[in-house]
């Protein structure tokens, strides 16, 4: 068991980002019924903005804030301008709509910054925890802490606050909520801004842990979907647990002889296996 420990620890970093992305996806799905395919693209453009600002010697905190801000503004723009035009359609179509948005954002990012991969260095890279002979950089620790904190925060927001109640009501039945006097646009704004903030943070972390490349980051949302699926697009704690376990399993898979080249398939295999065991809540009404 001892020689598995390093892989376990190194899997925590990417697992945390899966968990964080999963939470970002579930929040929006629970509050607006949209599964955001543009999540990765928003994170990517945010990371590129940060990269450009750092390149021009802006202060670090301003660069990070602009990254998250960009993702939030774009997410809000889609949520307010385009999403309402699809709001009367079923969740599949509403989600596929974000795919169009993802293509637009990804196309713009690649066109403006070029397809060449870059590396985004975070100040938290410099220091690391030594744990079981593995360097766990503070970036990864930060990701893990953020995933847990965000899960708790969002969980409380949705279950305990007024706005959380409104978000759930809106996701449940948009027309009925509007009829009851809920301010639909206000709730939409909160949901899309929140989701955008998650996308921005995840984009920064992934651009650091993996690499900064628009297409790659855009479609890196797909393994994050696996975590969200495990949480049945509903449960935040399960999503976080699933995200972290998927990351760890993916890292552990290196040790299985002959499986190493296929290890990135772990999220998909896990999600497919989970779907087989789903019960009534995923079924048709």
């Amino acid at each position, binding site marked *: 068991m001892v020689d598995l420990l390093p892989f376990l620890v190194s899997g925590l970093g990417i697992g945390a980002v899966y968990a964080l992305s999963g939470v970002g996806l579930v929040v929006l799905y629970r509050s607006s019924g949209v*599964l955001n*395919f543009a999540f990765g693209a928003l994170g990517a453009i945010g990371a590129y903005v940060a990269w450009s600002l750092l390149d021009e010697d802006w202060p670090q905190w301003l660069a990070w804030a602009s990254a998250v801000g960009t993702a939030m503004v774009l997410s809000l723009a889609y949520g307010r301008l*385009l999403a309402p*035009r*699809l709001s009367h*359609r*079923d*969740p*599949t*179509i509403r*989600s*596929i*709509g974000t*795919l*169009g*948005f*993802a*293509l*637009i*954002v*990804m*196309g*713009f990012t*690649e*066109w403006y910054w070029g*397809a060449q991969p870059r590396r985004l260095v975070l100040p938290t890279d410099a220091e690391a925890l030594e744990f079981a002979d593995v360097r766990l950089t503070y970036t990864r620790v930060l990701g893990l802490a953020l995933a847990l904190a965000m899960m708790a925060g969002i969980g409380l927001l949705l279950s305990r606050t007024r706005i959380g109640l409104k978000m759930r009501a809106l996701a449940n039945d948009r027309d009925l909520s509007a009829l009851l006097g809920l301010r639909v646009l206000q709730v939409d704004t909160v949901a899309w801004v929140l989701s955008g903030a998650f996308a921005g943070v995840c984009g920064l972390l992934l651009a650091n842990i993996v690499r900064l490349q628009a*297409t790659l980051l*855009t*479609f890196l949302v*797909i*393994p994050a*979907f*696996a975590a969200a*699926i495990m949480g049945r*697009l509903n449960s935040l704690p399960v999503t976080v647990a699933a995200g972290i376990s998927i990351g760890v399993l993916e890292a552990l898979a290196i040790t299985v002889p002959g499986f190493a*080249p*296929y290890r*990135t*398939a772990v*999220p*998909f*295999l896990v*999600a*497919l296996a989970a*779907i*087989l065991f*789903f019960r009534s809540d*995923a*079924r*048709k*009404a």
Partner: protein
Amino acid sequence: MMSYEQTLSPSAAAGPGELQQALARAASEARRSWLTMLLLLSLLALALPWLANAYWIKSLISAMALAVAAAGVALLYGQLGLVTLCQHALLGAGGWVALRLSHGLQLPFELCVLAAGATSCLIGMLAGLPALRMKGLYLALVTLMMAGGFQVVISATGFPDGGEGWLGRVVGSERLMMARPALALSDAAYFRYVVICLALVLSLIELHRRTKAGRSWALIRRGEAAAVSAGVNILLYQTWAFGLAGFCAGVSGALLAGGVGQLDGRAFGAGDSVMTFALSVVGGVYHWLGPIIAGLLMRAVPSLLSDYNVSGFLADIFFGAALLHALITAPQGVAGQLVYGLTALRRRITGRPA
């Protein structure tokens, strides 16, 4: 199905005679539409090899091969409202089988195409099973996970290229090209061959749409309760639709492999499957013209852009905007708008109201 509803809705109540007339009118319209398709594809097959240069004819071969796969997506989305995001992965699976059989057993090209279609048909049916008991969104996710898994596997194993062993990979020496059919060795002839296959597949789908399968799909789409009460076997017809869509993908993969000669394992990412779906919707899912347009969007438009030195990434922006446009205001896609435009033009010329 749109034409049936339009012709039948108000007049159906008027009496049995008028109903018969309306049905006959719809049937003749369907026949005319099918003949138009054959005519258009024959024109394409005859004219394009004369007009296009060597680079363009290769692009057009790929475009027409991909149109076959797009026809499968259009079938599932247009007839049943189901979103499948693994069509390009199924295409890759079909391509793998075709290449493996061609290199390993030297089977005739047609048999390779059919085997590829049958394999993808089976996988497609399996992928569709969860759809029988889950919400539409989960089907999109299941297929997306399958596409993601396929991406990992195929980029690790690659496609067979004439080597030894089960995977058929060449080590060290040059990669072999897939043998084309004896009838169509040149690019121009192979282009005609692909267009004929496309015509066959589109006709097969039209045939389904106009017969019992199409009626059953329409009922299933209306609601499962409606379908069950009308005596439709949901399991059979939904799985059938998935199988047919998978068959399209497999045939498309084999045709693409024959056109290019070999396939690249890195070109079958989950992103490509997502793109195939998006462009099929943009092309139009209710008309046979849609898949042809989708195929052109996937291969010919990027070639056109690189001819004019425009960045291919701008195409992504355009495709994204087109997808949103198709979802929000033009559910019939480019094909629907073209057909509508042509009908309006004909009316203006003949001066006859609809």
